[in-house]
């Protein structure tokens, strides 16, 4: 196993120029990968369209069927996939470093369970649907995510000065089970149609049906990504332990707070847009570490780019493999991610 890792891992920087070049290469390379995937994904589907016709300025948009399929039917879905994938993969990287645990995922700290509970309540109780229309479920799930975030953060900071990552982890795991129990109870009381709808929601679905949900999602995800950009070097030091990081000049509490809040915000927004799509937040960061090493200045941007591309590709698979039937995208990522996760577990022990 070690040999495979050694050959996959890029040579580590020997000079300052090397590091600079690698940071640029990673940012441009993985960024381009995400953009290209978003542009290619909408070309794939039961109705075949051509890229040259899509961008043919000679045909008015109203008559250009290819452009309509591309821009109205499929591109929003690809962009949603990219946003959700980027957020979950980035949040995974940040939380793994914060908790100093390679097996942490964006869903470890209970934020996604809170989001699911929020969505469940709206789907089952149905009352606010009439007030907010189609935005009710994503809004409720985002509110649920923020609620869970607040509870976990309060618990982790109340006991002593600073932020206890141990309490963070335990509170998150406990909240996950508690919320799951409440979700089951709510589903037990619901009628079968509502239960079906909520089960579908939990499987994840990127068919956002337009640019609206993307626009709502972009604000919190954008804030989280800006916060992520400040973190990588401090995250490197945090993996040595809080005290070692502090004696090297890291403001540990500020870093932990920023890491937890931004990762939770990204997770909450991603789940609100696409549902709790599992395994992205763990497969992608670990794949990236095999490719670029452990330095978060490379791992974080690479994971954001690869996460976006990976989820868009999974979603293309979800809507084409059994076409015209559609598979839930969460099932695809889980089928790829489950075995991968187990492999990691075995490899680390």
């Amino acid at each position: 196993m070690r040999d495979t890792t050694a050959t996959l891992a890029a040579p580590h920087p020997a000079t300052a120029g090397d590091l600079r070049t690698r940071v640029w290469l990673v940012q441009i390379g993985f960024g381009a990968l995400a953009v290209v995937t978003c542009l290619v994904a909408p070309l794939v589907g039961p109705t075949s369209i051509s890229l040259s016709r899509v961008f043919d300025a000679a045909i008015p948009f109203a008559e250009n069927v290819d452009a309509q399929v591309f821009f109205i039917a499929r591109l929003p879905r690809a962009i949603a996939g990219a946003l959700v994938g980027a957020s979950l993969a980035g949040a995974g990287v940040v939380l793994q470093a914060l908790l100093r645990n390679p097996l942490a995922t964006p869903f470890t700290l209970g934020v996604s369970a809170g989001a699911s509970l929020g969505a469940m309540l709206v789907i089952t109780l149905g009352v606010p649907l009439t007030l907010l229309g189609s935005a009710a479920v994503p809004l409720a799930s985002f509110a649920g995510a923020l609620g869970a975030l607040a509870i976990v953060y309060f618990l982790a900071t109340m006991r002593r000065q600073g932020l206890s990552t141990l309490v963070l982890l335990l509170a998150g795991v406990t909240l996950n089970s508690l919320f799951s129990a409440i979700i089951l109870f709510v589903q037990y009381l619901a009628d079968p149609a509502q239960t079906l709808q909520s089960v579908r929601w939990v499987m994840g679905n990127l068919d956002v049906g337009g640019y609206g949900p993307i626009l709502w999602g972009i604000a919190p995800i954008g804030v989280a990504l800006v916060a992520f950009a400040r973190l990588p070097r401090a995250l490197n030091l945090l993996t040595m332990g809080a005290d070692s990081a502090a004696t090297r000049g890291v403001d540990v509490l500020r870093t932990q707070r920023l890491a937890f809040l931004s990762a939770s915000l990204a997770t909450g927004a991603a789940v609100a847009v696409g549902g709790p799509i599992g395994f992205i937040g763990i497969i992608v960061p670990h794949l990236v570490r095999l490719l670029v090493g452990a330095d978060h200045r490379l791992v974080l941007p690479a994971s954001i780019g690869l996460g976006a591309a990976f989820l868009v590709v999974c979603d293309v698979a979800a809507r084409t493999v059994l076409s015209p039937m559609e598979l839930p995208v969460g099932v695809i990522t889980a089928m790829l991610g489950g075995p991968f996760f187990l492999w990691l577990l075995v490899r680390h022990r």
Partner: protein
Amino acid sequence: MLTADHVSFGYDHARTVLSDVSVEVPAGGLVGVLGPNGSGKTTFLKLLAGLLVPTRGCVRLDGADIAGLARRTLARRVAVVPQETELAFDYTVLEIVLMGRYPHLRTFELEGPDDIEIARRTLAATGTTHLEQRTFRTLSGGEKQRVIIASALAQFETGANTTRGARDPRAEATSRTQVLFLDEPTSSLDLSFQLATAALVDTLNRSHDTTVVVCTHDLNFAAALCRDLVVLRDGQVIASGPTETVLTPDTIGAVYDVEADVRRHPITGHLTVVPLARR
């Protein structure tokens, strides 16, 4: 000069770990902090290094209360080598040493050529140049310790580069005591590495002008290495001063409840402690 000025500390109100501890570590000194388990050694080290803030009293570095210094400012002058370092992810040795440059870089700044040069110098000083491209997890305990020492040393050195000096004028202006703390450096090392660590620390102290504070329960290691000793028991200073005057059967008896024979070793010339019986 590093001074603990009537320092008291407790993790909660009920229990005091240190009470009214005053210690002076002269610039360029090599001081050992001794004491039995639970005597407050590690807590004292954390207070001196600014990881904990005293409940009463203060710690001064060249006269300035370290509680008032920014983390980054302090990190350029005070470095800690913990008993053990566990990494959540596997970095290369060079990457670990470059992490010591954290307090010299701005948020989005990458390490420059002078940082790499400084890192290589500290690798050379700790005899770990050949490990540069290895990953940390593949190293032995002794090698890991040296790499962490190199990473700690990298915090100190200011690049010769003038632009860096211009960016932080205060760095040049203040008189600078640089303190390296080592917490139980011999606890996981075999005899050969213990000697090597003692020799390394001695060299760093003498030829690199680094003030060193070593926390240890290994009396003979402290006797061989340290010029001054501070002995703690139950959070209080029992004795402090030059090694020769502190390390006596009486002090050892008072601290450890052990009868001990202390004499100068004919070959090494250091004081050597042989515990004889529990009192």
